[in-house]
């Protein structure tokens, strides 16, 4: 009979035990009667030899090895009964724990998703990101020419294979026609071996065949799962059919699995609808086009690959004198590339929730101590009646465990809701967020956290409690017995306040940094500006492009409510591209950086986006393909190329073929990040450059919904093939750029608020409890003439004393912590006095409120009632 059977068949075992012993008993009786005793004598004698039937039974039960379960079950039943009776206590305890555990599990899931879990690819640990230009600069710098990609792929010894995609999505976006309104699909061009190397298997259909990946091959496309669901309602029949993309019939060869989130991994916040194999020969002459991912050979480290790259790639470069760029590259693990920059933020977040949990535990310890004090008589009684100390400790620990389990259950629910909410936050620029979920490791983490919490908040009161001297407690009122408890409770509250102070200061510093970021002068006016992607067919001729766009802008500007309109091929804080700019006459130096971000724009774009022309003139329609090439530069470019000189009228190399003349200077615009400094930029007339698509920017006080109709009608009147596209507020670009910071500030701020709430509950609990304990004392003092104000003051002073000790400790710790998060701050000193002052003030205020409520109660004590009771 197994242990489990013994546990669950205990009823049957009891019956059998009884029957067996009864048989023995009756045999003995019969024996005794045979020896000449009367029935009564025989039974009596037998009963004596048995020495207590129940004791025998109990010993037999013990041999089953299941007895402890039964006694735990007894404990549980008892605890559940008492918890149900103390409903208010239970609810508060479970709520505090649920918040603490929920926040911890949610953040653990985030950390797990973004930092710990390997990327959802085959051989994820061996994938590496290969970035050009030492990984610095604009997308054009870190990408590679096709020739370079093919050469390093051929020559590299460290890598088993390499694959690539084109991160310039403006080129790969495709217009879908033929079914309903024309639409622009977010496309990605990938190398033929992209999916096989990452180990992505299609959910439906197949991957690309070799003949689909060569120049002039059969056009093929793979759909993303989300797009397939959205556009084709998940109809499997689409596989094998042709759709019309850019006026070409393209066969849908398959659908990618739902778990493959291209944007989530490589470009957070970017949508990808379709994937097209790009024949390398098609883009060979397009310059830097490819982002490269390598698969390291087994056993080769990133460091070894980097060492090889440092030696071998310059040799490859030397063999190709026609290439314009160096092959200096930086190799990082793909996971590091995707989420390495978030490590510090996430760890800070993790620490913040750790602090929350500590505060929650200290709070609970306090609650349990108060409860234990109220139950001291019960425990003294049980101990006097012979309950062992270990039994009492076990019961108290079991009680903590029960609370922790209930807290964990609710905490998991809270964490689940938080993660569900966060994973639906599409536009946040955080990688892998959509794949965040509560999984087995999160559950394991919950268990660990709950277990630690149980020990932490359960042990203190139980050791305290079980050690009470029964005599002391059973006496009606041990006057001095409360003091030791009080000191302990005060220590707990002080540590809560200190922890909350650290949290608040940290959150305050991050919040202030965030406000600073919001205050950054971007160089353009995001509010009231909207962008819409326009489609035009200029046949590749600049003159025709000029005519079409001039007419388009004229019509759009004539619409009611439109204050300004202009077109640029790229928007700030969105996609970018860089070329070189070198002032004429300046000596070329190999070590210097000549990168400039390039925007190809129409006249009027500056006004539409809200940029400021500092010097010179804007671009005119009269600057055409045949007139002398001109450019606008920003102040950063002027500072770099013509320091201390007037750049207007100067000439430079690098834009187009030959020299271009600077006709104006605009204020710096944050083109790639809100927080970084503005880089040198150049604006080229759309009639003199080759735009990659076009973004029409309009400025209007009207809501985008009100504009969409009229603008779209105007665009359709020029080009019936104009796809239906959304109006994108420029503010959205800014929001997206600062979304990681907003995300962290929001979370850390919420946690700090939670910490403050918990700490104030702690203060309130302790002060309120001490007032209750001192009811009699206060009553006497009032009877002797103490005024209400004086009693109140006494309680408040006591509260503030606790708070100030806590704050003093907390401020000290905050200085240390703030230095650790200095790299996460923006425009804010880690010792920012305003933040410290505000947070201290906030804490003192909250402490005052938490102390005032019990103080008011104390001052309303009626001496007569206080003295009469007890």
């Amino acid at each position, binding site marked *: *009979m197994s242990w489990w059977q013994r546990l669950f068949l205990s009823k049957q075992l009891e019956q059998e035990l009884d*029957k067996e*012993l009864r*048989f023995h008993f009756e045999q003995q009786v019969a024996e005794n009667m045979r020896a000449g005793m009367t029935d009564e004598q025989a039974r009596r004698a037998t009963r004596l*030899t*048995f020495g207590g039937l129940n004791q025998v039974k109990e*010993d*037999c039960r013990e041999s089953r090895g299941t007895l402890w379960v039964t006694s735990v079950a007894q404990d549980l039943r008892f605890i559940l009964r008492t918890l149900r009776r103390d409903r208010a206590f239970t609810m508060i305890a479970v709520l505090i724990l649920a918040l603490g555990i929920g926040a911890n599990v949610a953040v653990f899931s985030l950390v797990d998703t973004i930092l710990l879990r390997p990327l959802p690819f085959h051989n994820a640990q061996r994938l590496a990101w290969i970035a050009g230009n030492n990984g610095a600069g604009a997308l054009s710098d870190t990408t590679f020419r096709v020739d370079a990609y093919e050469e390093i792929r051929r020559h590299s010894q460290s890598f088993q294979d390499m694959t690539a995609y084109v991160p310039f999505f403006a080129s790969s976006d495709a217009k879908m026609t033929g079914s309903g309104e024309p639409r622009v699909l977010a496309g990605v061009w990938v190398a033929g071996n992209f999916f096989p190397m990452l180990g992505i298997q299609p959910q439906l259909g197949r991957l690309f065949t070799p003949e689909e990946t060569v120049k002039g091959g059969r056009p093929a496309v793979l759909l993303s799962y989300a797009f397939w669901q959205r556009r084709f309602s998940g109809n499997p029949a689409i596989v094998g059919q042709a759709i019309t993309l850019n006026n070409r019939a393209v066969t849908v060869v398959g659908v990618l699995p739902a778990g493959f989130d291209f944007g989530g991994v490589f470009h957070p916040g970017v949508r990808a609808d379709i994937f097209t194999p790009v024949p390398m020969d098609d883009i060979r002459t397009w310059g830097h086009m490819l982002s490269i991912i390598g698969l390291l050979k087994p056993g080769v480290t990133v460091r070894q690959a980097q060492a090889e790259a440092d030696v071998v790639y310059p040799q490859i470069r030397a063999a190709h004198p026609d290439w314009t760029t160096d092959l200096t590259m930086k190799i990082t693990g793909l996971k590091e590339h995707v989420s390495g920059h978030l490590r510090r933020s996430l760890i800070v977040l993790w620490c913040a929730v750790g602090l929350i949990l500590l505060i929650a535990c200290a709070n609970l310890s306090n609650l349990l101590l108060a409860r234990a004090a109220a139950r001291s008589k019960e425990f003294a009684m049980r101990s006097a009646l012979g309950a062992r100390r270990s039994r009492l400790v076990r019961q108290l620990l079991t009680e903590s465990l029960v609370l922790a389990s209930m807290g964990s259950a609710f905490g998991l629910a809270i964490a689940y809701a938080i993660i569900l909410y966060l994973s639906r936050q599409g536009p946040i620029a955080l990688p892998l967020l959509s794949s965040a979920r509560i999984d087995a490791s999160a559950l394991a983490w919950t268990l660990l956290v709950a277990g630690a919490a149980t020990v932490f908040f359960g042990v203190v009161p139980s050791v305290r409690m079980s050690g009470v001297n029964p005599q002391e407690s059973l006496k009606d009122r041990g006057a001095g017995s409360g003091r030791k408890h009080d000191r302990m409770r005060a220590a707990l509250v002080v540590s809560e306040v200190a922890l909350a102070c650290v949290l608040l200061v940290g959150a305050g510093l991050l919040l202030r940094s965030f406000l600073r970021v919001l205050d950054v002068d971007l160089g353009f006016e995001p509010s009231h500006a909207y962008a819409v992607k326009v489609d035009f067919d200029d046949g590749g001729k600049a003159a025709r492009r000029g005519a079409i766009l001039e007419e388009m802008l004229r019509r759009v500007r004539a619409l009611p409510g439109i204050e300004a309109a202009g077109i640029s091929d790229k928007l700030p804080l969105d996609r970018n591209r860089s070329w070189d700019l070198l002032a004429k006459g300046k000596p070329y130096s190999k070590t210097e950086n000549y990168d400039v971000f390039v925007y190809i724009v129409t006249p009027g774009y500056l006004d539409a986006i809200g940029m400021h022309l500092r010097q010179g003139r804007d671009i005119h329609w009269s600057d055409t393909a045949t007139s002398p090439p001109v450019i606008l530069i920003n102040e950063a470019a002027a500072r770099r190329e013509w320091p201390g000189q007037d750049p207007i009228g100067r000439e430079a190399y690098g834009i187009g073929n030959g020299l271009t003349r600077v006709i104006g200077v605009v204020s710096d615009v944050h083109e790639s990040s809100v927080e970084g400094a503005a880089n040198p930029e150049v604006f080229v007339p759309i009639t003199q450059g080759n735009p990659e698509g076009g973004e029409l920017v309009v400025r209007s006080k009207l809501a985008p919904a009100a504009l969409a109709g009229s603008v779209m009608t105007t665009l359709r009147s020029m080009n019936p093939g104009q796809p239906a596209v959304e109006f994108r507020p420029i503010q959205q670009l800014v929001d997206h750029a600062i979304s990681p910071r907003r995300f962290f500030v929001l979370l850390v701020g919420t946690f700090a608020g939670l910490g403050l709430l918990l700490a104030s509950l702690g203060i309130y609990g302790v002060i309120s409890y001490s007032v209750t304990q001192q009811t009699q004392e206060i009553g006497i003092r009032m009877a002797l003439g103490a005024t209400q104000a004086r009693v109140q003051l006494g309680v408040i002073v006591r509260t503030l004393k606790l708070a100030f000790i806590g704050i003093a400790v907390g401020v000290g710790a905050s200085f240390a912590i703030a230095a650790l998060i200095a790299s996460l701050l923006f425009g804010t000193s880690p010792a920012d006095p305003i933040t410290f002052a505000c947070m201290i003030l906030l804490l003192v205020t909250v402490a005052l409120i938490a102390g005032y409520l019990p103080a008011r109660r104390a001052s309303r004590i009626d001496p007569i009632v206080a003295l009469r009771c007890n």
Partner: protein
Amino acid sequence: MDATTKFDLPQGTLDLLILRVVALGPIHGYAIAQRIQQISRNALQVQQGSLYPALHRLQYKKLLTAKWAESETGRDAKFYELTARGRAQLKSETESWGRLTDVVALFLEDPQGELS
């Protein structure tokens, strides 16, 4: 030896005695107690409080099996029987007991007087 002279069995010895008695054939608890008393010529009187927990423990260790059957008096009784494992255990414990008593005897008899 007198029937009232009782002594405590060394730890674990009761299990060995029980196994030995049960090895003779299916037998119920009362008869085991009787048999131990008889064989020890009344030197050992096994208390119910020791016998039954030991029986149950042996049963849970799968050294004994038990089934209910009619006893000689016509009442249902729980009969214990040795399992193959119990038989092996009995064999090995008998041997080690023998070795132990031999060794102990060497000390106690002490013919060469090495201990004195």
